[in-house]
């Protein structure tokens, strides 16, 4: 069989599987998890820009996610602004904060940057919790309006699945086109060697800040979707621990690849839930699991099955991912 035909067949099969998930899932609990994992996919794809492609550690992704969620929630609840206007504003608001953290981070590397992003995340969470007159404080924001489109209101878990899937596909397309643009190449050049990148004419300031903003934008959009889907948000959701979970998603899936964050996000949403039957033991076991994965597949799951990113390459028929870790010298 022709390789091209085979590729199309696999592609169609994959699409069929993805589209049939709400039907295959036994009940709404699993559909709900699938929806949550789709939202996390967008967050992880965002984090992949700053960490995977540009090579900077950020533990602030949950804060950007939260800024997006609060923007949509507060605009909807306090100002009755439609979801369709609030959602892009969520992304923009998060990316403004991304710029805010991106600028001081220009001078920071390694541990220092990691700490600055942790600090930023904690400050954001404190503001959400304590600035009651603006954020509704620790009680959280409830009755967030749902999503309707031309008279049709999204209500069931399956409807949300297709709605979120649209955003995931969009995110993947945006990621793909950025990866193959000059900007994407600048990201990678900065990751490999900042000094060399600068001498070859790449604007370091712009590239780094833009990468931060882009990461935050994705997280902000995902946050807006999360707020509308769950109808209630509160500050404790957007914690440092959650940032670590997002980071682990990217790392376990395979940083710097396009499929890695997708797989990582799905895995880390489902696995703890599937371990629930172990009751109080499951989180301890989950911890061991992370250590084992770091020991045995530190390069990420995607890179095991697809040497040098062959899998993604094969699907997209393009040269894409790479296998070495995106780690900068610290």
């Amino acid at each position, binding site marked *: 069989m022709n390789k091209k035909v085979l590729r199309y067949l696999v592609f169609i099969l994959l699409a069929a599987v993805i589209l049939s998930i709400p039907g295959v899932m036994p009940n709404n609990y699993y559909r709900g998890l699938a929806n949550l994992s789709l939202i996390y996919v967008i967050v992880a794809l965002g984090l992949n820009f700053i960490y995977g492609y540009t090579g900077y550690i950020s533990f602030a992704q949950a804060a950007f996610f939260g800024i997006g969620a609060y923007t949509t929630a507060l605009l909807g609840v306090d100002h009755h602004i439609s979801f369709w206007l609030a959602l892009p504003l969520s992304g923009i608001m998060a990316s403004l904060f991304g710029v805010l953290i991106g600028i001081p981070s220009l001078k920071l590397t390694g541990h220092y940057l990691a700490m600055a992003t942790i600090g930023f995340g904690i400050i954001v969470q404190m503001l959400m919790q304590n600035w*009651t007159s603006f954020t509704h404080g620790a009680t959280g924001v409830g009755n967030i309006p749902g999503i309707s489109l031309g008279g049709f209101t999204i209500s069931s878990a399956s409807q949300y699945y297709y709605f979120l899937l649209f955003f995931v596909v969009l995110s993947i397309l945006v990621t793909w086109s950025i990866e193959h643009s000059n900007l994407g190449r600048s990201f990678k050049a900065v990751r490999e060697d900042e000094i060399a990148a600068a001498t070859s004419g790449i604007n370091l300031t712009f590239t780094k800040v833009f990468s931060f903003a882009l990461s935050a934008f994705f997280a902000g959009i995902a946050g807006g979707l999360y707020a509308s889907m*769950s109808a209630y948000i509160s500050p404790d959701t957007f914690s440092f621990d959650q940032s670590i979970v997002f980071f682990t998603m990217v790392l376990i899936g395979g940083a710097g690849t396009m499929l890695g964050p997708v797989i990582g996000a799905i895995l880390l949403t489902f696995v703890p839930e599937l371990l629930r039957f172990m009751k109080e033991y499951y989180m301890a076991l989950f911890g061991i699991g992370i250590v084992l994965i770091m020991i045995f597949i530190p390069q990420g799951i995607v890179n095991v099955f697809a040497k040098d990113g062959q899998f993604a390459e094969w699907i997209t028929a393009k040269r894409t991912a790479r296998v070495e870790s995106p780690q900068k010298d610290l």
Partner: protein
Amino acid sequence: MQRKTVKSFSLAIATLLIVSLSGCGSNGSNSGVSADKAPIRIGQATALTSEYTVVGQYLSNGTKMAVDEINAAGGISGRKIQLVQEDSANTNPAAVNAINKLIDSDNVVAIMGPDLSTQNFAVAPIINKAKIPFTVQGTNAKLLDGNSWFFRLRPDDGLAAKTAAKFAIEGLKKKKIGVTHDSDEFGVGGRDLIVKAVQDLGGTVVGEESYNSNDKDLTAILTNIKNKGAEVIIDWGHPSQSATLQRQNKQLGINLPIIGSPGMGMPATIQLAGDAANGTYVVGDPVPSLNPDPKVQAWVKKYTDLYKAAPDFHSASAYDGIYMLKMAIEKAGSTDATAIQKALLTIKDYQGMGNTFTFTDGNGAHMVMITQIENGQNNKLIQTVKL
């Protein structure tokens, strides 16, 4: 690392995932057992992990004890109760997942809700959509607004906060009040209610200070409260910080009387605070050991023997919750959600191990106690307040 090993390891993970996914549909149905003999599934979402397990354990123990007793006595109308517990991990996403699992995967007929109000807020949209009776532990005064499936087993913070303010001003005759509280939803909600109640009663709040759930040193807060001229402290927080507050109050020689939220009376808090706890006032749920009813005394003894630790008001409310669900299901004559909801709303003057319950709306518990800690026991009754 050998590539082959790596690959097989990854494959093993993938297989595990697929196997568990494909197996997940099968545990929800009771096929093969006729409906009138099948066990009645009751769900409970509580903290099995996270620092809040300290409360989760009381809730879990109280619930299990009631379920075991009922099953040993023949169940509900001949059907056994099957308790399904899920971890709420003290986070909203985990609580949401736990509730979704209980409703959709485990097909429970009623749910014992998670520990903190914020998690109850988070799951409210799901409960309202699924229409399933849901008992509430969270004490936030606004929690029941618009949630007709919520049945609260604890007095709400409005009542407790008002009682605390009233006791400070009228009982202790102190008009200058310092408020200390956790910065979380529980503490902040409590603070607002206390401040309002104090103002309504003609007192003044001279200082409001908050701490975070992981603070270990409250010297600054106590010094501030003292310097602002407070004559009494009303504290709304969780065990660790409440204990530190009492300790440092004595250690720093500040020695202000303290009126605490229900958590101040938990055995865990008293044990942490040691001698410093003596003299502290607690406003909260009725204390089972103070109930003269021999039935309650026997329950306290049985619980203590069973779990090698004394029960607290959480265990009592969870225990009572299960028995009231049993009553409601028996009265309804079915496990139909609307029928159970209706039956719960007819419960009147039910003498539980903790509170006395009357559900005209979602609020069932209308009684709080003011107690004082003596000799390391929350055993001195000052006053019982009924709404």
